[in-house]
């Protein structure tokens, strides 16, 4: 049973040296995972407080893995945004994910905030990496006392509120397939704050330049990032056109429920979302023109 304290004074910190040891410490649900700390350490300000105990996973070698093959990218859950951005710099197949890692928050936070923390923090609606990885059809690896299992990211996100305690997210696997990717975010300032809305897209064109496949994901608009399958399917078979994408998104925007937050109200997020979709497709158009 997880109990909370108002400040940090009562919390214990475990420092396991293996995934098995970490999983053992997490098994009874009395401890929480600590990776970069950028969410956990703000618990007092949010009013969430702190857990009895934390299990520090940021030094586990398995969680620091970062490797790319011709057809997949494997990201350890404790890899930071800054490490991921450096690793992906100039990778033409993963431009959207690279931008998400490179532009979220600010440099000092990107050097501590981890990929796993972005995915596992239920209350963090504005995480940039979540829609970026959804658009790439990423899968996550979870390890618990029963062993290792793999889930599509979308299924993992849906399962989080009711998940039994004790599972540790260890890796994210991204299939690298042909196509273009983009990450667009709208912030109230130029940078450094939470985005009002995020749009990620992965699009593959056929030989005639028509959209053959599209996967579009939306972040920060609803409480949890999600795929937008109806928009994706409506754009298949059409030319890559920012105006069409924006108009179609405006037509379908009623499918989403905007969340109210301190930086923007829900109606505003829905209002700007189609424009952001248009910007994303304009970026893809520009990239296609350059090829």
């Amino acid at each position, binding site marked *: 049973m997880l109990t909370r304290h108002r400040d*940090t004074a009562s919390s214990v*910190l475990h420092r396991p040296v293996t995934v098995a040891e970490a999983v053992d410490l997490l098994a009874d649900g009395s401890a929480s995972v*600590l990776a970069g*700390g950028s969410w956990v*350490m703000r618990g*007092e300000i949010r009013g969430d407080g702190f857990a009895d105990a934390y299990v520090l996973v940021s030094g586990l070698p398995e969680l620091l893995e970062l490797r790319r093959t011709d057809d997949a990218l494997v990201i350890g859950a404790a890899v930071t945004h800054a490490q991921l951005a450096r690793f992906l710099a100039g990778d033409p197949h993963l431009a959207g994910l690279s931008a998400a890692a490179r532009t979220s928050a*600010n440099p000092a936070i990107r*050097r*501590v905030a981890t990929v796993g923390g972005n995915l596992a923090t239920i209350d963090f609606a504005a995480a940039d990496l979540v829609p970026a990885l959804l658009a790439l059809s990423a899968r996550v690896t979870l390890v618990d006392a029963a062993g290792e299992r793999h889930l599509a990211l979308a299924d993992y996100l849906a399962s989080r509120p009711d998940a039994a305690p004790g599972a540790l997210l260890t890796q994210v696997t991204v299939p690298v397939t042909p196509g273009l990717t983009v990450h667009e975010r709208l912030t109230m300032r130029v940078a*450094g704050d939470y985005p009002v809305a995020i749009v990620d897209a992965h699009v593959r064109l056929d030989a005639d330049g028509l959209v053959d496949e599209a996967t579009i994901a939306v972040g920060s608009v609803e409480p949890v990032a999600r795929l937008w399958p109806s928009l994706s399917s409506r754009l298949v078979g059409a030319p890559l056109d920012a105006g069409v994408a924006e108009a179609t998104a405006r037509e379908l925007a009623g499918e989403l429920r905007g969340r109210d937050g301190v930086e923007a109200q829900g109606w505003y997020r829905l209002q700007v979302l189609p424009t952001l979709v248009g910007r994303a497709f304009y970026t893809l158009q520009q990239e296609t023109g350059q090829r």
Partner: protein
Amino acid sequence: MTTELTVNGSPRAVHNPPMTPLARVLREDLHLTGTKLACGEGFCGSCTVFVDDEALASCLVPVGSVAGASIRTVESMATPRGPLAPVQQAMKDTDAVQCGMCFPGILTSLTALLDENPRPDRADVETALVGNICRCTGYERIVEAALGLGTETGAGA
């Protein structure tokens, strides 16, 4: 709990609960008050220090998570009677400093930028400073000072 660290080149042992923010330990236990603890959320940048050569928001770093690490604060940039580090001297030369609250973090963020990119352009400098909030200066002289450093070698910490 005792946590052993190397702070500005010297071995130190601190005795705090492990989830205590590193910024608080630096200020209240080690009296290194150049590091500010302002927003406590990683947004303002005034607590930025180097942890194993990475410039981090030390308000978000639990001290227990950096046991054994090497910490460098703004106090390491120059000795009281020695010359200023180039990035400090540049701020002085351009009269960029006003109240000074944000400057330890700005110096650290710019040092991190110049270590990685010795010849940044304006966009690089502005991007590097998005997490450092200054309420006095309007940033222009800070950016100009950093751009001037880009023509020299070694920002130095």
